[in-house]
Each structure stands twice: as C-alpha cells, then as structure tokens.
C-alpha cells in the first residue's frame, strides 16, 4: 500500500482495464479483439516501438546507477565488519561531534554513529527483502491460481484480495505493533502478510492474458498437467512483471519499517536505520542540531530504497525494449 502502486503506472492502467471487463464478455469478444491488437502490434513493432526503446535507454542509465548503489549497500549489509570502525555497541563519550576518531560523531549513549549506520544496513535490508519475499510468494500463488483456474476460485480469491486491499496497512500494523511486543520477525511477517494484494492482482491479470495464448491452449490440449503449465509456460512469462514488483515491494517494506520504527514500534535490540532516526528525533539529536546524527540514516534509507526502486524500473524498461525487439 505504501509504495508499490506508485512505480508501475503502465501495469496499473492495463490491469484496471482488464479488471473492468467481465470474463464472459471477454471470451466472446476475445478473438476479434486479440486479432485487432495483434495486427496493430505487428505494425507498431515495425516502427513506433522505437520511441519506447529510447525511453528504455534512459532508464538503463538510471538502472546502472541503481545497481551500483545497491551493490554498495549489499556489501555493507553482508560484511559490515569490514567498513565499521568500531562495534556498534561499543561506548564512547556521548554527543560527540564528527572527528577523525568518529567520522560521524557519537550518539546519546556514546555509540559510534558510523558503525551503527553500517550495521544498520543489514537489518533494514533484511526486513525489506524478507517481507517482500513473503508477499511476492503469496501474491504469486493467489494470482496464478485465480488467473489459471478462473471461475469460483477466482471470484473467492479476488474478493478476498479486494477486502484486504481496502484495509489500511499502516494503521493496522500500528495497532498490532502496539499490542504485540515489538520484534523484527513480527514486523517482517506483518509487512509480508499485508502487502501481497497488488502483486496478486498483476499476476492474475497477466495470467489471464497468457492463459489465452496459443501455447498455453495447445499445452492443455496436449495433456500437460496444470502444474506443469503454470511452472513451465506461465511462470517464465511472469518473471518480468514479478521482478520489478518484488523490488518495489522491498523498497516499500523498507520505508514502512522506517516509519514504524519512528513511532517506537521497531525492534530496539536490532538497530535499523529507522530506529536510529527515531532515536535521533526523540533523544535530542534534532533539538541539538546534530545533523551528523539524524541526516545519515535518513539519507541512507532514501538512497537504498531508491537504488532498489531504480533497479525495478530498469527491469521494466528493459523488458519493454526486449518485447519490441522480439516482435520484429
């Protein structure tokens, strides 16, 4: 809910169009519509896609920057000991300004902020990826099943998805977080369990499309099992939608984590960037104008989320380009 919708404008449009036409109608009209679009696409592939290709090129540049940043953060997260000058729990004199000994100074209890920052990368990114994994998996399953089998199962699953979509996530997480003791695992679980619906939708609409493609119809006709068709024919054609969605889900989960930590609902024993920022705000870093305390974690969150989002964008752009080439 936080972010996913924002990035994939194209897919959302497409999806909402599909959503509006009922299945029965689409079956009756399908052949003619498909035929029309296909012919049009044939022509477009010859010349008009050039425009999109150019657009894709721009994104590729973004993508490279994103990839670079992301690798940097990933290395930080994987081997923090290499970069952090001290252990994040080691104590020095509190409230120290940046110096050669402490490049970013120390916080209220005397921890070295740079070390905290480096170690925080792992926690923030873990929350993001773990919850994105959960939500992508759930979304993929629900979307695939309801798109492939259609009928009653589809109605039920999509009804359920619609209901989940409407419940505002952040307030619910706040309530849950307030009742349950804050723990990073609960946070991951809750974020993962509550943000799959946009993935489910996009997977479903794409599956509905692919299901009607000749190769799936012939595979059904030749007697391949539904499981085989889903895994070997439909899934590979979904990857290009899923990957950006996965990246964006990660980005959004990281922002959610940071926001919740800010409210004091994070896991204090695992200091993520969000918690650092929250402490800087609540324990006087802000009032004392210690920019070296509150600025770095915030900038890190933004940059890291951005790198992940940019990679997501890059996937989309490249896919478009590839489709253009393919059609030739």
């Amino acid at each position, binding site marked *: 809910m936080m972010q996913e919708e924002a990035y994939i404008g194209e897919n959302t449009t497409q999806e909402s169009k599909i959503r509006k036409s009922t299945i029965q109608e689409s079956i009756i009209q399908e052949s003619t519509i498909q035929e029309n*679009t296909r012919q049009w696409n044939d022509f477009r592939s010859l010349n008009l896609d050039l425009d999109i290709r150019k657009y894709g090129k721009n994104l*590729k540049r973004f993508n490279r920057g994103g990839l670079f940043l992301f690798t940097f953060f990933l290395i930080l997260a994987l081997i923090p000991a290499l970069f952090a000058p001290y252990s994040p729990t080691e104590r020095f004199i509190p409230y120290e300004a940046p110096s050669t000994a402490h490049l970013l100074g120390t916080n209220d209890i005397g921890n070295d902020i740079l070390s905290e920052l480096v170690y925080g990368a792992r926690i923030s990114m873990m929350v993001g990826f773990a919850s994105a994994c959960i939500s992508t998996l759930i979304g993929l399953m629900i979307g695939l099943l309801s798109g492939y089998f259609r009928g009653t199962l589809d109605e039920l699953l999509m009804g359920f998805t619609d209901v989940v979509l409407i419940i505002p996530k952040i307030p619910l997480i706040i309530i849950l977080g307030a009742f349950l003791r804050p723990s990073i695992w609960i946070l991951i679980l809750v974020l993962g369990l509550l943000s799959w619906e946009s993935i489910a939708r996009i997977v479903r609409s794409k599956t509905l499309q692919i299901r009607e493609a000749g190769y799936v119809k012939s595979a059904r006709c030749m007697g391949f099992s539904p499981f085989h068709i889903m895994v070997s024919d439909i899934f590979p054609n979904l990857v290009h939608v899923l990957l950006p969605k996965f990246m964006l889900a990660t980005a959004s989960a990281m922002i959610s984590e940071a926001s919740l930590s800010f409210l004091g609902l994070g896991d204090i024993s695992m200091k993520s960037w969000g918690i650092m920022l929250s402490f800087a705000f609540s324990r006087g870093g802000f009032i004392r104008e210690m920019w070296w305390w509150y600025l770095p974690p915030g900038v890190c969150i933004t940059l890291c989320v951005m790198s992940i989002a940019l990679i997501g964008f890059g996937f989309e752009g490249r896919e478009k380009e590839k489709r253009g080439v393919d059609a030739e």
Partner: protein
Amino acid sequence: MNTLLEVKDLNVSFQGNENENKTGNKSENKNETVTAVSCLSISIREKETLALVGETGCGKSVVAHAIMRLLPPESIVKGTIEFKGKNLLKLSEKEMAKLRGKEISIIFQNPSLALNPVYSIGHQLAEPLRIHTQKMRWKEKEGKKEKVKQKEKREKKKENSNLSKVSRALKRVGFSNPREYMGYYPSWCSGGMNQRFLIAASTMLDPVLLIADEPSKGLDRDRVSELENELKGLKEKSETSLLLISHDLGFVRRLADRVAVMYAGEIVEIADPSSLFESPLHPYTRGLLNSLPERGFVPIPGASPPLSNPPAGCRFHPRCPIKEKRCTQERPELKESNGRAVRCFLCP
C-alpha cells in the same frame, strides 16, 4: 485529369536498436537498418482509386504513414512526396497539421482502437470540424477584440452547426438515427459500426485524398461487402481520390482503378485491375494470383525475405520459377509500357 499526389523515389528506413544484445537474441546481430520501403514511386490522379497490395511486412502501411507524415521521428524518410505541387516532406509540422484531416485523411485498420474510448462518437466526429475551424478563429481574434457574450453566442451557434454536420455525416454512412449514436462510446459498438464512424470522421471535411489502410482486415465477409459499398458510394458522391492499401485481392479488384503490387519494400507491378488479374506480368504477381482460392491455392514456394537483409539482385529471385543468372546479380528497374509497369528483366 491532373495528378494529385506524386511520390518519387521514396525510401523509408528504421534504425534497428544498436546496442545491448547480451540479453536476448544472441544468435543474431541486430546492428542493422530495416529498409521498409525502397525507391517507391506512385502517382494518384484526381478522383482516382489506387490500390497498393502486398503481403504482411512488405511495407505498404509504411507508405501510408509516410504520406501523412505520421511515422515516428526516428525513421529516415528520403525522396519526395508532392501533393498539389507541394513537397509534403519539406513542410513544417504546423503546416502539415493543417493538411491532415482536411485535405488528406486516413482510415486505420483497427477502427475500435483508432477511436478514443473515453469520448463520445459525436464529440470525436465533430473534432475535425473544431480543429480546422478553430485555427481561423485564432486569426480573427488577433484582429479585433470581441465581447465575451457575443463570442459565447457564436460558439453555441458553431456547436449547433457542427452537430447538424455530424448527423448528416452519420446519415451518409448509413445510420438512420444519428442523434442517438452521437452519445455512444466506441466500446459500446461493434467493429463494423466503429469502422463506419471512422469513415464518417475521416471524410467529415471532404478531403481531397483519402488513405484507407487495410480497411478490410479482420472483418467478416458481410462487413467487407458493406465497407465496399461505403467506399464506392464515397467515390461516386465526392471528388475524393482514394489510396487503398490492402492484402485482399478480391476487394481491391472490385474497387481500384489502378493496382500497384508491392513485394519486399518495392513495387513490382502497376497495372489496371482487369489486365493485372487477367494477364499478370511479374512472376510474383502470377504466383500471388495462383495462390488465391479461385485458382486452386497453388502456393509460391519459400517465404518473403526479411526487410533488414533483402537478397541481392531481383528481390524475388530466390522464389522465382523463371529466374536467370542476371536476376541474382542485377537489380531490375520498373519498366513502363502501355500504361503498365513491371520490375522484371524477363517480362516484355
């Protein structure tokens, strides 16, 4: 009869994307230009119907879009397209916009996609009127300042006259109850109806040249004959010249005054329909006609060459039953004699 449109040595090519081949298509080098149309020359006289026929991917639609200058900016267009003595390729975008819809109109092959789904039929039909009269109003405005009330009144009047013009146009394409259909949206109507709306919109300002880009593609047989009557009526009633682009030979035969056959980006034969269909000269035309149902589906062996890499010499030689040695090396020119033209060494 005067020549209305004269296309000379038209070349249209598209740049293939240059870099990034690591992901897909490893086997092929995509660093290439696709020449969709090469050395194409045609002319259309006033009130004449010229048909451009050919198979998928031979570049016929590109010709239509090149004439309208609707190709994307990345495409490279060379040659001249003279319309009423003006070279269209030299006009500025603004001048071209004034011609489009007013002097030259186009009917696309997918009527349901060419109409904007969120505007009503009436609105879209009136659009050419609004576009091409508004420009004059701008000029007027520069001269004198009008009172707001007067302007409103005029606008209302204009709207009304637009409405009646639209309903007349709808009646012309066979809707007995135009007022009702004006409130409809494209998605509520069938493809055939949308096609008629599209024809009405494109002929709203009585263009001098109408380009019909594969109008019969994807239509039922009944609809095709409906469309045929539509276009025939249009030809009889107005002064419009028609450039008909199609792959449907039967359709073309019934409508066209002259037929140009395209193969792999070039014209191989131009003739009037009766002589073309009865005594085709070029081996490709012959093969094409033989693969028609009424001549027993005799296929041409092989497949069309890719436009990115056409064969040397005559482009048809790999599939030609009567080829000689020089066909594989030299490129034949379009030879003209008694009103027909053919691009083959071996034809008289």
